[in-house]
């Protein structure tokens, strides 16, 4: 039994690995990826020539020019937790909206099928 579960888990992880590997190959071989990487390295080069304070001025947070809203994302800015709960409610609402549309569509289809043909 345990061996069977282990075997099934291995298959699931193998399929997931194949999907991830395929996706990585697809993205890393795309021309957009190499263009973005080249662009990033140019930006990095330019940034390394700038003095420290100037680089941070362009960002919303000092000292970390590449990311904005970092402390908010890291959960330190708890004033944003109401916004986060609203976002969760919005996501749940989206799931229910999709459910409502699909179930409604299925209901209409069922009604149309049951209607006697004249």
């Amino acid at each position, binding site marked *: 039994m345990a061996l069977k579960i282990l075997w099934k888990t291995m298959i699931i*992880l193998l399929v997931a690995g194949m999907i991830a590997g395929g*996706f990585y190959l697809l993205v890393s071989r795309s021309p957009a990826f190499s263009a*973005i*990487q080249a662009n990033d390295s140019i930006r990095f080069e330019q940034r390394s020539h700038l003095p420290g304070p100037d680089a941070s001025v362009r960002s919303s947070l000092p000292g970390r020019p590449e990311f904005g809203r970092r402390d908010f*994302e890291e959960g330190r800015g708890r004033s944003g937790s109401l916004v986060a709960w609203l976002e*969760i409610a919005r996501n749940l609402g989206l799931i229910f909206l*999709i459910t409502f549309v699909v179930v409604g569509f299925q209901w209409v289809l069922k009604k149309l099928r049951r209607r006697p043909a004249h």
Partner: protein
Amino acid sequence: MHKTNLILDSILLAAFLIIMEPRLTGIPWHEWLSIALAAALVIHLLLHWRWVIDVGKSFFRKFFHRSRLKWIVDGLLFAAFTIVVFTGLLISENLLPALGLRGSRDFLWRNLHHTSANLTLALVGLHFALNWDWVAAMLKRYLFNPIRQRFLLRRATSMPAPSQSVPPISKSS
């Protein structure tokens, strides 16, 4: 078995919604919870293994069947979630450093992570919608019916006994 599935699926949905909002948990919890969710998803797949194999085996035999659509949506959901976890691992800031590795700083992976997460949300909605019959039946059996029964029982105990209020019906009538 149904009860286990319902509890696990409810936990999965709640965890997914919380993980979708890293501003609530912070990045470290977001990453570790995602790994826990991935493990829970493997358990979810193991619990539905028979269905996955059975529908997969007879996929083309009855192609225009509702279960085929479910199978395709579930496959896409699995692929989308795998990509979310994979891109999340690539841009990881706590999990990979904890293992002595360094995550990527590419904005491309970050964008792909966000896009695949949004796609996963839409697919979760579709998955939920296509299994709505089961969800509704289980909620009715394990949530609404017990609440209703408890409510009725409470009402019955609060009302006076029928022998006290209603006169007994005589056999002659």
